[in-house]
């Protein structure tokens, strides 16, 4: 790990300002992804701004009838919140399907959204990787790509966003609230938050330098049956091969977001229109632009079968 200086931020404004004005600065929340990557010198910040003391750890009702989740609310606390369990079961389920009890006790809402890919070549600093070292090439495309993305990918990078929580947030149309270094705030719909790799897979989201996530806002409850299904190589404590987050209404309409297949939680409103016609129709539409590798083509079939299981569970 490279040496770095450290400060505990005392207000959200000073945190954002310090992050923008200090070269090599990064925020640290739970630290469960950042420190992992710092040990491997994949992340090399020269200054860390600890945002744990900013009081962003509350879940509050919004005037619109939704909930505002502070950026520092721990995954455990979010999953266990009465209101989340009752009205946004999908989100509780997605969080509980991720990582381990220990990790969820530290991992935060903002940090979870910003966690980086688990592509094995991104982690192996001896390998070319356009995300880690722009221009060096992508070892995954002709390599071990079983875990990697099938849709939204590019010739430069086929990595996935590995997280579970973001899949639920996408199905729920959550909105990410931020503050920038100049003190202005903005709201970013989660659909627009993560970027597709294109030629610049190192740029993963739309945040500006120093921009601090302060909260994630959920719209008012939308009823329906909330389901989160995750298929992985072992029953617990493993990242998804494919995960499906769904809200299905009694009339068969619904929302579907899929994890483990793309650089961001994958959702397509046109595919959702096909839901009443069944899993095959919806997944064909959702994956119309897929370009899997030989090793991960199984994910296409898996998405359809998982959708089918989700729809059966919703009916049952």
């Amino acid at each position, binding site marked *: 790990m490279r040496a770095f200086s450290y400060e*505990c931020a005392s207000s959200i404004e000073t945190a954002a300002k310090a992050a923008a004005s200090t070269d090599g*600065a990064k925020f640290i929340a739970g630290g469960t992804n950042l420190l992992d990557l710092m040990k491997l010198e994949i992340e090399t910040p020269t200054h860390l701004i600890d945002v744990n003391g900013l009081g962003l750890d509350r879940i509050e009702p919004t005037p619109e009838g939704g909930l505002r989740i502070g950026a520092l609310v721990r995954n455990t606390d979010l999953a*266990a919140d009465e209101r989340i*369990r009752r009205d946004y079961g999908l989100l509780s389920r997605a969080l509980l*399907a991720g990582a381990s009890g220990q*990790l969820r*006790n*530290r991992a935060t809402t903002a940090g979870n959204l910003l966690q980086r890919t688990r592509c094995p070549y991104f982690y192996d600093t001896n390998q070319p990787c356009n995300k880690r070292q722009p221009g060096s090439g992508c070892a995954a495309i002709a390599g071990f790509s079983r875990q990697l993305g099938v849709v939204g990918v590019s010739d430069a990078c086929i990595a996935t966003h590995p997280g579970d929580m973001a899949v639920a947030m996408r199905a729920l149309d959550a909105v990410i609230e931020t503050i920038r270094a100049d003190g202005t705030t903005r709201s970013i719909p989660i659909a627009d938050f993560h970027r597709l790799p294109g030629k610049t897979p190192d740029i993963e989201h739309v945040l500006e330098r120093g921009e601090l996530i302060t909260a994630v806002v959920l719209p008012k409850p939308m009823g329906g049956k909330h389901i989160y299904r995750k298929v992985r190589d072992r029953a617990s404590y493993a990242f998804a091969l494919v995960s499906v987050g769904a809200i299905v209404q009694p009339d068969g309409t619904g929302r579907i977001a899929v994890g483990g297949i793309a650089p961001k939680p994958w959702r397509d409103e046109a595919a959702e229109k096909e839901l009443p016609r069944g899993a095959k129709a919806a997944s064909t539409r959702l994956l119309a632009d897929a370009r899997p590798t030989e090793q991960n083509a199984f994910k296409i079939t898996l998405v359809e079968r998982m959708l089918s299981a989700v729809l059966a569970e919703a009916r049952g």
Partner: protein
Amino acid sequence: MQSPGALEISRRDLLVASAATVTVAGAPSLAHSQTNTPEASTGTNVSFTVNGERLELELDNRTTLLDALREHLYLTGTKKGCDHGQCGACTVLVDGRRINACLTLAVMHEGGSITTIEGLGQPGNLHPMQAAFVEHDGFQCGYCTPGQICSSVAMLEEISANIPSHVTDDLMAPAEITAAEIRERMSGNICRCGAYSNIVEAITEVAGRKT
């Protein structure tokens, strides 16, 4: 249990007391990080409580909580398995919650209260979970065991606090203590020796005594 540990503990105390980087609370020291300017130092003074004892350390910022415990405080009960959050051997309790000590910086725990396996119980004065692991053969090589025990103690508290899990059927019903729940909630602790079934038995016994 007989206690070959008495000697060990006093040796540890001695080491702690003589370690150059450790001072007792109240002794004059550098201020905590807030006053550090960014360009300034790559080290920070931090004070926290470990197993009930208040300590002050001057640490390189890179020091994980795990390395602070093992290398600076000589509390080597907490183990380093993977150092990347993937095994649970480093599990300790911070402010009552279980976390991976390898994926957190010591300087992030100013004012915190840390409990390690040494604080849960000692030879001759075992925590019920430690005693149950012994009784049920909940280990073979023992490397994962301190993490398993710290994790399981906090895990039962999480069930009492009605925190749900991936295998909880009904999110609105109270959390239950079943073998399936224990296995899922303990999945963050890997045991290479595969002592899992005995670990579940040990935890089940302690849970039964609690309820």
